[in-house]
């Protein structure tokens, strides 16, 4: 098994937790670095990415105007006047949708190739034996990153459902019924105190540790901590397994990052239920680096947990 130096263990909301009671986390000599590189695995057949920061995928129509930016081009709202529509229909309700404007997603069919095989379809069995679908992505030979709520259910309101999930079937590069890298089952998960103890969405991230080194075959994405300015100038890419499409098919979209705050990344990239846990990644000189973990569908933008220093530290330690 490959080894690498561990980083200092974060504390507070980012204090790491394991589903295995015998697992111990150790502090090691800290030597923080801003990023970890990707690897393409065996026989990757990687297609070069586009110059605009998106993947080169047949049928992808390019980076659309975000709903938020289109809104800003409209005539300014004169606050003294109400919209005439309210006279007939009442005040419009705020609503949240996860595909904004036309659906920009394209299906990926060469899922056995890099980078697509880095993304895994997840079949999750919760503590009450209910089943769920999500997405994960390799960051190392035996580690996938996903959303915290894919490995630890919080505040469900359903008796017996909360807590660590029982198991996750991990299917990298799945293409409908085809499993080019098979299926591996994990019962070994990680998340952090801020998610498991508090259900705080700012800490919604976790990991799946698989009992094989399958990542050496599929390859993995790099990941890094980047400044606000760098992220806001970047194109975000997301590929995952949405529930509204044919079962087990992988779908991709990309768009410029809309905004960031200290804990989250916001983007107008089309997603749907089932894509929780997907990598939000940027392409740097043809190499793929995760910048966030997709988790929530929102009004004009969707969002993910931003990879900041303590998130990065946990990811490095989970990868080791």
């Amino acid at each position, binding site marked *: 098994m490959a080894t690498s130096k561990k980083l200092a263990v974060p504390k507070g909301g980012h204090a790491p937790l394991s589903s295995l009671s015998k697992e111990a986390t150790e502090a090691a000599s800290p030597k923080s670095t801003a990023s970890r590189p990707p690897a393409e695995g065996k026989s990757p057949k990687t297609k070069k990415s586009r110059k605009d920061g998106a993947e080169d995928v047949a049928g992808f129509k390019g980076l659309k105007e975000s709903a938020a930016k289109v809104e800003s081009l409209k005539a300014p709202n004169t606050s003294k006047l109400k919209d005439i529509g309210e006279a007939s229909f009442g005040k419009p309700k705020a609503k*949240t949708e996860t595909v904004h404007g036309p659906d920009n997603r394209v299906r990926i069919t060469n899922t056995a190739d890099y980078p697509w095989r880095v993304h895994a379809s997840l079949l999750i069995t919760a503590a009450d034996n*209910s089943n*769920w679908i999500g997405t994960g992505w390799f960051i190392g030979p035996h580690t996938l990153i996903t959303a915290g709520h894919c490995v630890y259910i919080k505040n469900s309101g359903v008796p017996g459902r909360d807590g660590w999930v029982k198991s996750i079937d991990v299917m990298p590069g799945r293409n409908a019924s085809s499993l080019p890298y098979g299926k591996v089952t994990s019962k070994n998960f990680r998340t952090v105190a801020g998610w498991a103890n508090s259900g705080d969405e700012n800490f*919604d991230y976790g990991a799946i540790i698989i009992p094989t080194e399958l990542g050496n075959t599929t390859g993995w994405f790099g990941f890094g901590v980047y400044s606000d300015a760098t992220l806001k100038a970047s194109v975000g890419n997301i590929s995952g397994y949405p*529930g509204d499409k044919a079962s087990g098919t992988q779908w991709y979209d990309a768009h410029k990052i809309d905004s960031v705050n200290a804990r989250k990344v916001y983007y107008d990239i089309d997603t749907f239920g089932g894509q929780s846990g997907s990598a939000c990644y940027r392409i740097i000189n043809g190499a793929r680096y995760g910048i966030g973990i997709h*988790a*929530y569908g929102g009004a004009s933008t969707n969002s993910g947990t931003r990879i900041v220093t303590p998130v990065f530290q946990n990811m490095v330690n989970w990868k080791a």
Partner: protein
Amino acid sequence: MPSVISGIVRGPDGQPIPNARVYFTSGPVPLPEIAAITDDRGEFSLTAPVPGEYVIQGAADEFTSRSSKVKVKGNAPVRVELPLK
């Protein structure tokens, strides 16, 4: 306190559909993008974190997806049917 939206996904013949996918497409707050899989009785349950109006959608490969608006008041549970065509 969250509310639970539970229900059943049925086919055109009224029979329950196991292994259908059910997920939120809209709601009053940002929602986690995990999707439920119906059990062998076609049943599912989703968590609505706050009161308000939600839209849930059911999908299964042999059928056309169907959405349903659900109003959640307080933390009272809500029951819905998702008949697919």
